[in-house]
């Protein structure tokens, strides 16, 4: 112990230093959150609508109904590289509905008509089945109800449609109401790179 500091002064410096480290750490965590290093996301392997092995069960619509926003921040997203581009897509058509005069199912899956079906290339009017079709989700209409995800899932489809949180819309609430409601604990805060 030098003559310069008393024992009381040394202990005081140590306590202030520890408090400073704690403050910096807390500020760092807050800064990380502010910078969206962590964000609300959906684990597609837990979400009942996309979880493989749970095909044919009741659709969970909590992402659509429990978000504090009028139109949920959750949207259906079709990964085109995984899509089968089917003539009759089970996520687009209600495949158990009666067949219309055009040979196609008469009803659609999406209650908000948020999926657009477009032929890829020229369609032979005498054989429209001999073509591939693209299914595009209109995010201005989609509310993330998950019905198309359930129908697109293996084995009925190829699981190309998934639910995602749109971070430009999400309010990033500390206590997200969807996360509170999700029975599968599929909705949590993670690093974006973790998905």
């Amino acid at each position, binding site marked *: 112990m030098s003559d310069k500091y008393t024992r009381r002064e040394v202990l005081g410096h140590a306590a202030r230093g520890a408090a400073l480290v704690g403050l910096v750490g807390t500020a760092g965590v807050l800064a990380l959150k502010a910078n969206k290093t962590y964000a609300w996301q959906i684990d597609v392997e837990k979400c009942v609508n996309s979880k493989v092995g749970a*095909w044919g069960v009741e659709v969970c619509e909590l992402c659509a109904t429990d978000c504090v926003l009028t139109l949920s921040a959750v949207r259906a997203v079709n990964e085109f590289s995984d899509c*089968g581009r089917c*003539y*009759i897509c089970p996520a687009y058509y209600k495949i158990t509905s009666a067949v219309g005069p055009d040979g196609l199912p008469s009803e659609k899956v999406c209650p908000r008509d948020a999926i657009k079906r477009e032929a890829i290339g020229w369609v032979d009017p005498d054989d429209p089945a001999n073509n591939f079709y693209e299914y595009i989700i209109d995010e201005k209409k989609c509310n993330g109800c998950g019905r198309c995800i359930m129908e697109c899932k293996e084995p009925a489809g190829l699981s190309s449609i998934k639910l995602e949180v749109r971070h430009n819309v999400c309010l990033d609430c500390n206590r997200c109401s969807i996360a509170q409601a999700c029975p599968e604990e599929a909705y949590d805060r993670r690093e974006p790179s973790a998905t």
Partner: protein
Amino acid sequence: MEYRPAIRFGGKGTDASQFRETLRGIAIDEADRIYVVGDSKVKVFDAQGELLRRWKTGDEGHSIAVDVDGNVWVGQWQQVEVFDADGRPVETLADPDRLGLITAIAVSKDGVLLADASARWIRRYDREGNFLNNIGEQHRKGGFHIPNGIVDFDVDAQGIVHVANPGMHRVEQYKADGEYLGYWGKFDGQDPAGFPGCCNPTNLTLDAEGHVIVTEKATPRVKVYSPEGELLTVVADEGFDPQAKNLDLAVDSKGNIYVVDTVTLEVQVFVPVTKGATA
């Protein structure tokens, strides 16, 4: 025409007669022995489901066929391994520049037909392994529509090739040289005579009378059609794992239908019910 479920064999497990992870293809020889491929193994069963023998394949098998000489053909990635009836390697037909994933095989004196799911059509070779022609490549979109990832077909007594084209909800007919003859089938999610969902039928085989026996996915179902495409009967629409798809099938000389469940890894057998017979 009516069928009833009979026995099941195989299943998921570690016993010699079971499968650990995969069960993909099935074929039956002229003596009604059943050959199945899964877990990179060929397993041979008698008609009662008793394991007769088994052997490993060089690569993972995705399809299987038995020729009139008793040789066993196993379709793999870019090649076909041929074994004798006891599992000794005979030859390997490899064509890596042309072949992709082989999901169905037919062997006759006129040649070897290989369903190439990567190209989405059927490759025809002579018995010496020389490439002859493709079947299905004239489709405007460059092959069969197979969101399920497999092409399946069978060849009738006249040499006509019957192919499942699930994305178009059809069974198509071709000559061996690739000439398109026609199709039957249509989408229908309510009438069992039609093919439901995005893409059915997934698999097919022919019996001795030329009936076309198909399997479907979501929900798994087995149906028999006349050669002209008239639905004759629904063999089974329950009893399979609902998640199962691409259920390969084969028919023995008695008309019994053998179907693989790709999830439970069982082989299910359905036998024709004779009119007037008691159960």
